[in-house]
């Protein structure tokens, strides 16, 4: 991605040596939690020197679950489901459980899990072992895409720990595909099937890997647990807010000086603060894409002053999802961006459900027509909304609903741009994409 500064807008100079604004930390900053320590990969000796060996909770799993409950830790893959509830659900089924750490980070522009995997692999693996203790699991699997950054780091970390006699952690290499990162798809793949989402209603915490209760947990969630297991619930809640306790990793990308910057948000700061920390202009951008490529477009001035508090944001219709904060600067066309994302999401669909198979390409085609100016009729928007109503809530996984919601938020956020397009104009240079998409499988 290249940085452009059309008009009078220019990114602020940002020194990579500073710790950043108060309440926001980056890798190696003072005050960081997940990102504390050095600015490079931390090996096992360094990890233990900094944090000490992890406490052994395996003889008192219920106590650890109670600590997790008190901490209020929720799933940071984007679902924000209470981890304690997942653990209790798995514990309600007799027999040993399985832990799967979801380290796939299938969201193309998100880099927060990758940062942990690359630089704090032992924190992630400590978290995996703590999950195993809490769930009374005898199998721990880390699921990753083989080409992902951080893959080598995790593989090396697993080897390092073997030398120290720790319980073996398995590595599952998951196909490089968006829907493969969904928790039921991971379980299906580990069970020998295709990496595709399973019908709803079969909760993996009840019946997952090998039919056993399975706790699937995001890599950031596991890393938080590694620290909670050491320092407790009260400490965890000293960061964040009452409604959204603990720190949160975000990825700031798009029209900023340092796209792909990962920050740990420790205190309730605004989007403006993290966008500026990522080298964005110190004024509200045109729009912000929140939560991922199947996320929500929010007008820049609305997002700018809003507090990074996942619970409050969800209530305000701005779900934080995987923590992606995508900045769309001036001189950009949001419809062109949304159409590109929609085309990619449509290509990435699992192809299991008829309505999604028929519906997503139809939405994509119409939105592309609007973005490219070949469809200028007022009815096109109504057709997209009607298609969205047919599609929503019908699929096995969340992809169609997320894609439709992304498009609908684009149509409302970029209403002025829609008017321009009806007149055959476009405020974007239509050159380099702000939000690039990976190449989909053929």
């Amino acid at each position, binding site marked *: 991605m290249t940085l452009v500064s059309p008009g009078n807008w220019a990114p602020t100079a940002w020194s990579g040596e500073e710790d950043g604004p108060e309440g926001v930390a980056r890798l190696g900053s003072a005050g960081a939690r997940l990102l504390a320590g050095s600015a490079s990969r931390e090996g096992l000796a360094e990890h233990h020197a900094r944090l000490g060996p992890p406490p052994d909770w395996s003889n008192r799993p219920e106590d650890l679950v109670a600590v997790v409950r008190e901490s209020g830790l929720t799933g940071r893959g*984007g679902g924000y489901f209470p981890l304690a509830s997942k653990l209790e659900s798995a514990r309600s089924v007799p027999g040993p459980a399985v832990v799967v750490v979801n380290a796939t980070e299938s969201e193309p522009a998100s880099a927060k899990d990758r940062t942990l995997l690359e630089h704090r692999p032992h924190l992630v693996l400590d978290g995996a072992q703590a999950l195993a203790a809490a769930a009374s699991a005898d199998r721990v699997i880390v699921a990753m895409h083989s080409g992902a950054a951080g893959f080598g780091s995790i593989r090396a970390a697993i080897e390092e720990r073997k030398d120290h006699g720790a319980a073996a952690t398995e590595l599952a290499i998951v196909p490089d595909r968006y829907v493969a990162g969904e928790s039921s798809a991971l379980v299906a793949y580990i069970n020998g099937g295709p990496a595709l989402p399973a019908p709803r*209603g079969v909760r993996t915490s009840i019946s997952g890997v090998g039919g056993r209760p399975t706790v699937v947990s995001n890599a950031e969630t596991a890393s938080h647990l590694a620290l909670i297991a050491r320092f407790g619930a009260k400490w965890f809640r000293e960061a964040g807010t009452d409604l959204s306790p603990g720190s949160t990793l975000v990825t700031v990308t798009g029209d900023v000086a340092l796209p792909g910057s990962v920050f740990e948000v420790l205190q309730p700061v605004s989007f403006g603060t993290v966008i500026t920390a990522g080298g964005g202009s110190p004024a509200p951008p045109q729009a912000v894409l929140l939560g991922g490529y199947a996320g929500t477009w929010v007008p820049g001035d609305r997002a700018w002053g809003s507090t990074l508090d996942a619970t409050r944001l969800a209530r305000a219709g701005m779900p934080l999802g995987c923590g992606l904060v995508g900045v769309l600067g001036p001189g950009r066309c949001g419809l062109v961006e949304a159409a590109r994302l929609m085309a990619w999401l449509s290509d990435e669909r699992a192809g299991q459900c008829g309505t999604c198979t028929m519906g997503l390409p139809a939405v994509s085609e119409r939105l592309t027509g609007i973005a490219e100016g070949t469809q200028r009729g007022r009815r096109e928007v109504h057709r997209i909304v009607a298609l969205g109503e047919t599609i929503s809530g019908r699929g096995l996984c969340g992809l169609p609903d997320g894609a439709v919601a992304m498009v609908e938020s684009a149509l409302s956020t970029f209403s002025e741009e829609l008017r321009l397009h009806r007149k055959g104009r476009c405020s974007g240079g239509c050159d380099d994409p702000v939000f690039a998409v990976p190449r989909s499988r053929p």
Partner: protein
Amino acid sequence: MSKPDEHEVQIVFDASRCDGFGMCAVVCPELITLDRWGFADASRQPIADPRLQRKAARAVRCCPKGALTLADVPDAGRAAGAATMSA
């Protein structure tokens, strides 16, 4: 309140199996409609009416793909936490 021998059932629809044969919507139009492409759109409401339960059961039986099943509605609150897409 329902009598002890009465129970509610619910249609469970596996969208990945539906190929749009459409017989379910003919047999039980009260609970199942077809979308613009002919795929089933099944109501998730609990069904208490025995007559409607029988119609739903017929719809389940006539699906050649086995996309429909009937499940008992648990008394103590239905399963929470719908599947979400995670990163």
